[in-house]
C-alpha cells in the first residue's frame, strides 16, 4: 500500500511539467498580453486618450519583463518555483502570486467545504429516505427538487437570488459583508451579517451537489435493498434500522466516496462562475480575471494547483475506498 502511494506521488512530477508548459502556451496564445489589458483600462477607466494609453502601456513593458521571448519567461518561472518556491508576480494585483492565492484560499475552502458537507449530509439523508419510502409523496417531492437542482445552472440561481435580495428585500449583495461590517470587530451583529451573505454561495454551490448526491444515494440504496444479503439480514431478525444503516448504506455509499475524493479540485476552483456572479473574494474570480487579462504567472500557478489537487484527490479517494471496501487491494 505504501509503495503504491509513493508511486502515485512520483507520477505527479512529469504531469506537472506538461500541465505547466501547456497552460503557459495557452495563456500566451491570444494576441497581446497583460499590457493590452492595461491599455484598455487606461482608456475605459482613466479617461485617457487612446494615444496616451497605448504609449504608457508600452513604457511599462520592460518593467514587467514582457519584452522577453516566451521560452525565457517560462524557464525563469519554473526555475523560481523549483529553486525559491516563488510562483511569480501577479501584474493585476501587484503582489506575489503566492500572496494572492493564499489570501483567497481561506474563504474558498470555507465556502466550498461548507457547501460540500451540507450537500453530502442532506443528499445522503434525503436519499436514504427516498429509497426507503420509494414512490411516496416525500420521494416525489425530493425527486422534483433533484431534477430542478441538477438541470438549472447554479449561476442562474445566483442571479435570481441576488435580484430577489436586492430588488425585493433591500438587502446587500456581493462579497461576504455589508459596508458597515467589513472592519467591525466580531460580534453577534457581524455574525448575522456574515450569515446573510454566506448562505447564498453555500446554497448556490451546494444545490447541484445535493441533488446529485440524493439521486445517487437513492439509486444505489435501492439496488442494495434488492440484494440477497438484505433479505437474509431481515430474516435473521435484525431491526430495520440496523439492516439499512449498518449494512445496506455502507455498501451503497461507496461510489459517493469515490466522487468525494475527486471533488478536491472543485474545492479550490470554488465554483468559479457562481463566485464571479456573487462577487466573492475567492480563488474563482481571481483565476477568471487572470485568464482574461493574461496575468500569466497567476493563471499558470492556479492551473498547476488544480492539477495537483486533482491527483491528490483521486489518491485520497482510492485510499478511502480501500478502507471501506475490504475487497479492494492495491499492489
Amino acid at each position, binding site marked *: 500500500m505504501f509503495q503504491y502511494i509513493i508511486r502515485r506521488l512520483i507520477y505527479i512530477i512529469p504531469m506537472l511539467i506538461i500541465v505547466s508548459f501547456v497552460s503557459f502556451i495557452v495563456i500566451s496564445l491570444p494576441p497581446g498580453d497583460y499590457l*493590452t489589458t492595461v491599455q484598455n483600462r487606461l482608456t475605459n477607466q482613466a479617461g485617457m486618450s487612446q494615444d496616451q494609453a497605448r504609449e504608457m502601456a508600452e513604457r511599462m513593458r520592460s518593467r514587467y519583463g514582457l519584452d522577453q521571448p516566451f521560452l525565457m519567461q517560462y524557464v525563469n518561472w519554473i526555475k523560481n518555483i523549483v529553486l525559491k518556491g516563488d510562483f511569480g508576480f501577479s501584474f493585476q494585483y501587484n503582489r506575489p502570486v503566492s500572496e494572492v492565492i493564499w489570501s483567497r484560499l481561506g474563504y474558498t475552502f470555507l465556502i466550498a467545504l461548507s457547501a460540500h458537507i451540507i450537500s453530502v449530509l442532506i443528499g445522503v439523508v434525503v436519499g436514504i429516505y427516498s429509497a426507503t419510502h420509494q414512490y411516496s409523496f416525500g420521494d416525489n417531492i425530493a425527486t422534483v427538487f433533484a431534477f430542478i437542482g441538477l438541470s438549472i445552472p447554479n449561476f442562474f440561481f445566483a442571479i435570481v437570488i441576488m435580484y430577489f435580495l436586492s430588488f425585493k428585500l433591500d438587502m446587500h449583495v456581493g462579497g461576504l459583508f455589508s459596508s458597515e461590517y467589513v472592519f467591525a470587530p466580531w460580534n453577534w451583529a457581524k455574525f448575522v451579517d456574515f450569515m446573510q451573505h454566506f448562505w447564498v454561495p453555500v446554497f448556490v454551490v451546494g444545490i447541484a451537489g445535493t441533488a446529485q448526491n440524493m439521486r445517487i444515494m437513492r439509486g444505489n440504496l435501492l439496488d442494495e435493498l434488492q440484494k440477497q444479503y438484505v433479505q437474509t439480514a431481515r430474516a435473521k431478525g435484525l431491526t430495520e434500522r440496523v439492516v439499512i444503516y449498518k449494512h445496506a448504506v455502507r455498501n451503497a455509499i461507496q461510489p459517493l466516496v469515490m466522487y468525494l475524493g475527486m471533488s478536491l479540485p472543485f474545492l479550490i476552483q470554488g465554483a468559479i462562475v457562481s463566485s*464571479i456572479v456573487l462577487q466573492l473574494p475567492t480563488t474563482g474570480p481571481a483565476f477568471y480575471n487572470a485568464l482574461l487579462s493574461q496575468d500569466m504567472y497567476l493563471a499558470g500557478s492556479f492551473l498547476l494547483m488544480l492539477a495537483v489537487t486533482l491527483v491528490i484527490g483521486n489518491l485520497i479517494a482510492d485510499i478511502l475506498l480501500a478502507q471501506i471496501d475490504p475487497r479492494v487491494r492495491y499492489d
Partner: protein
Amino acid sequence: MKSFSKKVTLVMVFVLIISMSFVALAQEERALLGKLEMGEVVQFKNLDSYNEAPELKEMVENGELPPLEERLPTTPMVRQNETMVDGAGVYGGVWRDTFAVPIDGWNWGAGNVQGYFGIHQILWESPLLRGEMWKLNEPDPVPNLATDWEWTNDGKTLVMNFIEGAKWSDGEPFTTEDIAFTYNDLILNEQITSTATADDWTYGGQVTELEVIDENTVEWHFGAEYPMSALINFDRNNFPVSPKHVYARFHPEYTDSANYENYPTAIPAHDVPIVTMGAWVPIRYSAGEQLVMMRNPYYWQVDEAGNQLPYMSEIRFMEAESGETRTNNLVSGQGDRTNLENPSTFAMVRQESLKEDSNFTMSFGPFTSVYRLEMNLSKEFGVSDDREAELRKLFRDKRFREALTSAIDKEAISSGAFPGPLTAAYHGAYPDGSVYHSADNTTVYSYDPEKAKRILEEEFGFEDTNDDGIYNWPEGTAIAGDELIIQLKTNEDSAASVQASEALVPMLREVGINIRLQVLSGPNNTARTNSGDFDLSVARVDQAGTPYYFMDLIGPISSTTPGYHQEGSEYPRELLPFEQEIADLLQELRLSRTAEERIDILHKIEKLYTENIYTIGLYQLRQGLAINNRFKNISSDLPPYLYDYMVNAMPLQIIWVAEEDQYDELFLDEIPVEETYMNTEWSSK
C-alpha cells in the same frame, strides 16, 4: 429584417410608456449645463470667518490638531453658491461606493493605480481641473492648485501662480517645490513611468522648461508661441502632484541609497494613511474588501459661508470583482450610486426608481456616448492577403463608404437599442451633447439600400454571379469572382456594441455584403486594433463630445491615431486628401488661443469628417446616473462623464446630506494626525 422590426415594435409598445417620463427630466431648474461663468464656480479670496466640522473642532480642543486658521491656506479656494443647487450644506454623513480594480500602491507619480471608480479623482490634485467645465458657458480649464496664469513674452512663457499657504494632509506645506519635483523628477525622468512624458511637453521641437520663481509662482518656457493645448497637460490625468517631502526619500536623484526599480513600490497598498491634497485621506484598506477614507483636516477649499469642505466625513469603497453589484446595491439602498451605460438595464432600473419607496433617482446627461462603425483605411498596415488589400482600396474610396452608410438604417439601430429619447441616430463626428456639434455642418446620408446597391454595381462593377444574394468581386481585382466578405470585430464587454454589430449583419446582407462578425474579448479586441489586423470595427466612444481633449478620436494627430488609420513601422501612411486637411486643422487647433477659434476649427473638421464619411455613425446615447435620494447639491443634468468622470464633475466635496438622513460614521476617531503618519511603514523607511 422582418423579425427585426417586429421585435422593435413589441419593445417600443412596452417601453414607450416608461420612456415618456424621461422627457420630463430634461426640463428642470436644477440644471447647470453651460450656465455659469468661471467666477460663479470658484474664486480665491479671504473670508471673515471660517468654520469646521464638529469632529475636527473636538480634535483641536484636545490638542490633536492645530486650529482651523492655521490649517487653511492664506487665501483658500471658495466654492460659489451658484454651483450649489440645494445651497450650503451641513457636516456629516457617509458616501458608500464600489470599485473593481485592485489597488497597486499609492505612488501615483510612478503610475500606480488606486482602483479608479472615483478614487483617483478624490486623491489626485493637479494645477487645473477640467471636471467642472461642463457648467461653464465658455468652457476653459478650471483653476485648482493653480489660482491664475498669464501668457507673457509673446506667448512663449506662461506665468502660473499657485495657492498660498496650503498644506498637505499631514500638515507639511504645499509649495512649488512639489510642482518642480513632479515635473522635473517624475514626468521628464525617463526612468519613471508616470502619466506624461517629455514628448507630451515638447512644443516647437523643444522640451518645456520649468523655472521656479518663488514658493507660489513658476514660469513655463515653451519652444513655440501660445501652445494653448499645453493647458491640457495640467489636468488630473497628466499632472497629479506628488508630495516631494514623502517621495524624495525614495528617489535616486535625492537619496543615494534609493534605486529606480523600487521607486514604483515605495508605498504599497496596505500602508495607509498617505499624504494627499484631496478632500479625503485613505485610512484603512483591506485588500479585496474595503477602502475607507476620512475627511482631510487640512483641505484648502471652503464654501461661501466659510465652512471648510468637504461636508461629508467618511467615504467607504467596497472592493468587488466587477462593477455589476453596484446597481443591485443602489436599488436596495445599500450603495449610493451607479452608472448606467448599458441601454438594456435602463428600463428595469427606471421601474424601480419610480416606486414610491424608491431609494434613488435616475438622471440622464446629454448625448455624449456614441457607437460608430470604423473602417480600416490603412493601405498597407495590417494587410496580410489579397482580400484585405482589395478591401482597403474599397474603404479608401469615398463612393464605397457612401454605399456602406446608405445601407445602414441608423434610426432602426437606435430604437432597437432602446426606444425613446435616450438614444438617437448619429451621423458621425460629434454627438448632440457636444458644444461643438452643429447640424448645419453635418452631412447626413439617409438610409437608401437601393442607392447602395446601385453604387456597388454601377461604380464598382460588383455582380452576384452565383445568385446567392452576395456580390462577387469584379474582374480587374486580385480576387475576382470571390464573394464579398467583410470581417467585423467588436468588444464582447460592451453588450450594446455587440447588439449593434449583430443588427448590421442582416442589413448589409440586404445589399449583398456578407459580414462575418467576430465578438472578441476586451484585450483581444485592443490587440487587433493595435496591430491593424481588422476590416471593420464597431466601437463605443465616450469622449467624442470633447474633441479638443481627445483629438486622436477624430483625426490623425500621431502615427498611431486614429486607430482605424495607423502608420506601420514598415510602410508610410498615405493620408487621403480630406484626412490631410483634418490633420492640418488639428495642428492649428493645438495652437488656437480662444474658445471661438476652437469652435471654428472644430466646425470645419465636422464638415470634412461627415461629408467624407470618415467613420459611419450608428447611434448616440445619454449615459445614466443613479444616485441615492438623500444627497443634496446634485444637479439634474449631472453628466456621468463629460470632460471627466462624475466625482470631479459634481465635485464630491460640495455634496451633503441632511442630518436626519445621515448614516453613522464609523471611523470618526481615525482622522489622521501627525502621529498617525509617523506610525506608517513608509515614513520610517
